[in-house]
C-alpha cells in the first residue's frame, strides 16, 4: 500500500499533466454518474415524511373495460378504494387520500392571499407518513367521517399567512372556504411526492369534488405493510379482491384490468404510468443501467489510454520487478490496485461534488415550477451508506474497465526487452 501511494505521489510530481487529468476525469465521471444515481435514489430512499418507503405500497387507479370496446381508467372512488384495499392481512395502516396536489389560494390573519399546494387526506395518513407535528394535532377519524372543515398547515404557510399570530384554532380561507387550523407541521420536500403538501384538508368520503361516478374518483390507498411481510402476499389479496369485483361487474358486461397495484416505492419513484398501463419497472431499470454503462465506459476508455501512457514510462521497472520474482498476475493486480487508489480519490471528490450539486440544484428533480424552490432533499437521502457503497462499486467498475487492458499489456511485456528499454 505504501509503495503504491509513493508511486502515485511520484507520478503527480513527475507527470503532473497526466496525473491531474486522470484525477479530474475520474472525479468528473463519478460526479456525473452519482448525480444520476442520486436522482434515482431520492425517489426511493426513505426520508421524512416518507420514512416508511421500505414498507409503503400505493393502491392507485382502477381500470374497467367493457368487452374491450370502452375502456375507462382513473383514480378510485372512496368505495372502490375501500373495497380493494381496506383490511388487508399484513397491513398495519391503510389511508385513503388524494395524491394529487391542488393549487389553492389561502389567506390567514394577514390580509393577503398566498398560493399553496393542498391535499385531501384522512386521519390514518399521519400514521403512515411521519409529518412532524409542531403545534396542535392531526385529524381525528370523526372529523374525516363528518367532513369537518379543519386543516393542517405547514410551517411556511403558518408563517406567511399568520405571521406571529398563533394559527391553531384560527380560521384560514382555502379556495374561498373557511377552515379551522387544527395543527401545524414541519415543512417537507415536494420530493416526498406522496406525503408532501402545504395544506392538508380532510378527505371527506362524501365530498362531491372527489367523485367521478361510482367507480372513479380521486382516491388512492396508502398501505403501511407490517415488518417482514412480503409485498407479493398483499398484492395476491388485492388480486383476489379484483376477482370479486369482476364478479360484481359481470352482469353489466364489464371487468377490471389489473395492472399490478398496489405499487412499491420503485414504481412510485419512477413516476406512475398512465392509469391504464402496467408500469414497466424492468424497462426503466434497463434504461438506467444503459445510462450508467455509457457514463462509465466513455471516460473509462480515456482513462485507459492515459494509464497506458503512464505504463509506457514504467516498462523497465516492470522488467526489474519481473526479474525479481513478480509474476504476471501480480503485475496486473498491482497496477489495478494502484489505479484503484487514484480512482477512489477521484471518486471521493466526484461524490462530494455530486452531493453538493444534487442538494443545491433542486431543478435536477423536475420542473422547478412544479416542485417549487423548496424541493431540496434531505442530505441523508443523498449521502448514506448505500450511496457510498454504490460510489465505491462504480469506482471499482470504472477502475477495472480502465485499468485491465493496460495492466494485462504491461504484464505481457518481455522482461528482457523491458529491462533494456531506455
Amino acid at each position, binding site marked *: 500500500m505504501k*509503495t503504491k501511494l509513493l508511486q502515485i505521489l511520484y507520478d503527480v510530481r513527475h507527470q503532473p499533466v497526466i496525473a491531474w487529468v486522470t484525477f479530474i476525469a475520474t472525479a468528473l465521471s463519478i460526479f456525473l454518474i452519482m448525480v444520476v444515481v442520486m436522482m434515482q435514489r431520492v425517489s426511493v430512499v426513505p426520508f421524512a415524511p416518507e420514512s416508511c418507503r421500505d414498507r409503503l405500497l400505493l393502491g392507485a387507479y382502477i381500470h374497467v373495460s367493457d368487452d374491450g370496446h370502452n375502456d375507462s381508467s382513473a383514480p378510485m372512488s372512496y368505495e372502490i378504494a375501500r373495497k380493494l384495499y381496506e383490511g388487508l392481512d399484513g397491513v398495519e395502516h391503510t389511508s385513503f387520500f388524494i395524491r394529487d396536489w391542488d393549487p389553492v389560494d389561502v389567506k390567514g390573519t394577514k390580509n393577503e392571499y398566498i398560493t399553496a399546494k393542498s391535499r385531501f387526506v384522512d386521519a390514518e395518513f399521519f400514521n403512515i407518513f411521519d409529518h412532524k407535528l409542531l403545534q396542535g394535532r392531526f385529524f381525528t377519524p370523526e372529523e374525516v367521517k363528518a367532513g369537518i372543515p379543519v386543516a393542517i398547515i405547514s410551517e411556511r404557510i403558518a408563517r406567511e399567512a399568520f405571521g406571529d399570530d398563533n394559527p391553531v384554532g384560527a380560521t384560514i380561507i382555502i379556495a374561498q372556504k373557511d377552515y379551522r387550523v387544527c395543527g401545524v407541521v414541519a415543512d417537507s420536500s415536494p420530493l416526498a411526492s406522496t406525503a408532501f403538501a402545504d395544506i392538508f384538508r380532510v378527505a371527506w368520503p362524501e365530498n362531491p369534488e372527489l367523485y367521478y361516478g361510482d367507480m372513479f374518483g380521486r382516491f388512492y390507498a396508502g398501505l403501511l405493510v407490517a415488518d417482514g411481510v412480503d409485498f407479493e402476499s398483499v398484492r395476491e389479496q388485492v388480486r383476489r379482491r379484483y376477482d370479486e369485483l369482476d364478479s360484481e361487474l359481470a352482469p353489466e358486461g364489464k371487468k377490471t384490468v389489473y395492472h399490478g397495484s398496489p405499487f412499491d416505492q420503485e414504481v412510485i419513484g419512477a413516476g406512475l404510468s398512465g392509469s391504464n398501463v402496467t408500469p414497466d419497472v424492468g424497462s426503466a431499470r434497463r434504461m438506467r443501467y444503459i445510462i450508467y454503462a455509457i457514463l462509465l465506459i466513455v471516460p473509462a476508455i480515456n482513462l485507459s489510454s492515459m494509464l497506458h501512457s503512464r505504463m509506457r514510462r514504467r516498462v523497465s521497472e516492470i522488467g526489474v520487478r519481473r526479474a525479481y*520474482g513478480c*509474476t*504476471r498476475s501480480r503485475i496486473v493486480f498491482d497496477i489495478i490496485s494502484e489505479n484503484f487508489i487514484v480512482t477512489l480519490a477521484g471518486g471521493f471528490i466526484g461524490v462530494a461534488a455530486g452531493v453538493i450539486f444534487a442538494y443545491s440544484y433542486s431543478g435536477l428533480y423536475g420542473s422547478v415550477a412544479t416542485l417549487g424552490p423548496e424541493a431540496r432533499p434531505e442530505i441523508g437521502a443523498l449521502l448514506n451508506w448505500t450511496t457510498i457503497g454504490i460510489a465505491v462499486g462504480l469506482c471499482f467498475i470504472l477502475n477495472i474497465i480502465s485499468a485491465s487492458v493496460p495492466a494485462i499489456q504491461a504484464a505481457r511485456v518481455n522482461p528482457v526487452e523491458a529491462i533494456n528499454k531506455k
Partner: protein
Amino acid sequence: MSIIRLSGISKVYHTKEIETTALENININVERGEFVSIMGPSGCGKSTLLNIIGLLDRPTTGSIELLGRSFDTGSDGDLAHFRNENLGFVFQSFHLIPSLNVAANVELPLTYRSGMHAAERRRRVQEVLERLEMSHRIKHLPSQLSGGQCQRVAIARAMVGRPAIILADEPTGNLDSKMGAEVMALLHKLNKEDGTTIVMVTHNEAQALETDRIIRFFDGRVIS
C-alpha cells in the same frame, strides 16, 4: 558440483526476413562459489546468455540446469518463484525504481516472497544496507544518489534475498574507475564472504582478470 549447467544452448532470433543466431551450442558449467566473467565484443551474445541463465529468456535449443534443477519447462509462476529465491540481478543502468526510496528498492525482492513478515523484511534491508555502508541513505530517492551509490543499492537489492547466484550485466559500465573499483570490491566481498556464485558480463579486462575464470565469447560461441 555445478550450480549452473548449460548444455547445447542456442538462441536464434527470427524476424520476417532474417534469422539471427545469438548463441550457438553453448556448453558451460559454473561451480558453486565461483566468480566467472564473460567477455566479448558487443553483440556477441553475452547478455543473451545472462538472460537465459537468469530465466528471463528461453533458449531456442539446449537445456539449462540451475542448482540441480532443470528448466527446460516451467510456468511463469515457477520461474518467478525460483528467480525470487535463488537469483539476484545487477544491471549496468542500476534500474532502481525512481518512486521508491533506498529501503523500498532494496526490499523489493522480499515483497514477492510469501510468508515473510514486514518486520523481518525491514531487518534484512537494514542489515544489508549497513553491510554496504548505505544505511545513512535509507530514506533517499535514487535521484538523490550518485551513480556509485545507486549501484551499491542495486547490489544490496540483489543480495537481500540471499540468492545462491548473482548475475551482473556490466555492473561498472556506467561508473567511473574509482566507483567501478568500489563496486567490484563489493562483489568480490560478497563472493568470498557469502560464497555467492557470481556471473558477470564485462568489457573491462582488468576487472575480468580479478575473477576466478573468464569465458570469452565471439559471434555467439565460446572461444576460450
